[in-house]
C-alpha cells in the first residue's frame, strides 16, 4: 500500500522531470529513474524476471544509448524546456484529456480480485515456457526485428554515404 503510493509519486515526479527539464542529460537521468521505479512496481506485481530485464535492457542499454548520442551531438541545455505556444498549450490540454479518457477507461474495468498468485507466477520457468511454447512465432519475429534494426542502424549511422 504505502510502497505503491511511494513508488507512484516518485514515478510521476521523475516522468515529469523527463519532459520538463531543460537539459536533455537530466531528462535522460530522470528517465532512468522512472524506468527503475517501473521495475520496482513490476516486482510489486510479481514479475521478477521482467523487472530484471527492465533494469538491464532499459536502464542498462537504452538510456546509455541516449546519453551516448546526447554527448555525441553535444546537445546543450535549451533556454527553456518548451515555450507554451498556442500549439503547446493545446498539446498539453490534449494530453490531459487523453489521461482522463484512459483513466476513465481503466476505472470502468471491474476491480480486479487480487488473490495470492500460484507458486512460481512470474518465475523464469513459467515465462520461458510461455515464451517458447505459446509464443514461439512472436519470439522468432523479434529476432528478425532485431536483425533489421541492426542493419538499419548501421545503414543510417554509417559515416560514408
Amino acid at each position, binding site marked *: *500500500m504505502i510502497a505503491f503510493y511511494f513508488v507512484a509519486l516518485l514515478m510521476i515526479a521523475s516522468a515529469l522531470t523527463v519532459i520538463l527539464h531543460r537539459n536533455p542529460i537530466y531528462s535522460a537521468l530522470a528517465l532512468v529513474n522512472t*524506468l527503475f521505479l517501473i521495475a520496482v512496481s513490476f516486482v510489486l506485481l510479481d514479475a521478477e524476471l521482467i523487472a530484471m530485464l527492465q533494469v538491464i535492457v532499459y536502464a542498462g542499454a537504452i538510456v546509455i544509448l541516449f546519453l551516448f548520442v546526447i554527448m555525441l551531438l553535444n546537445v546543450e541545455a*535549451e533556454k527553456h524546456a518548451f515555450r507554451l505556444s498556442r500549439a503547446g498549450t493545446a498539446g498539453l490540454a490534449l494530453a490531459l484529456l*487523453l489521461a482522463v479518457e484512459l*483513466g476513465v477507461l481503466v476505472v470502468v474495468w471491474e476491480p480486479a480480485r*487480487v488473490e495470492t*498468485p500460484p507458486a512460481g507466477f512470474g518465475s523464469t520457468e513459467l515465462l520461458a515456457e510461455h515464451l517458447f511454447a505459446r509464443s514461439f512465432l512472436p519470439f522468432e519475429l523479434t529476432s528478425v526485428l532485431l536483425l533489421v534494426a541492426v542493419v538499419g542502424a548501421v545503414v543510417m549511422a554509417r559515416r560514408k554515404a
Partner: protein
Amino acid sequence: MGVSIEHYLILAALIFAIGCAGVLLRRNVIVILMSVELMLNAVNLTFVALARQQLSMDGQVIVFFVMTVAAAEVAVGLAIFLAIYSQRRTVNADDINLLRW
C-alpha cells in the same frame, strides 16, 4: 498488499499521458524519443498489471516483446538522428520542416 490493480492502471495511464505531453511539447527530438519510451513503459506497466490481475503470463511475455521492439526502435531512431544531425547540425523539431504544404 491491498492495492487493487486499477491503481496501477491509472498510474500507467498517467505516465502514458505524460509521455504524450512530452512528445507534443519538447522540441529536442531526442527528448521526444524519450517521451515515447515513457509511453511504451506505461504500456508495459499496464500489461504487467493486467497479467497480475488475470494471473496469466501472457502479459509478461508481451512486455518482453515490447522491450525488444523499444530497443530496436531506439537504436534505429538514434541512428536517424545522427544522420539528420550530420546533415543540418540540429535535432530541433521546429527547424526540420523542409517538407510541407
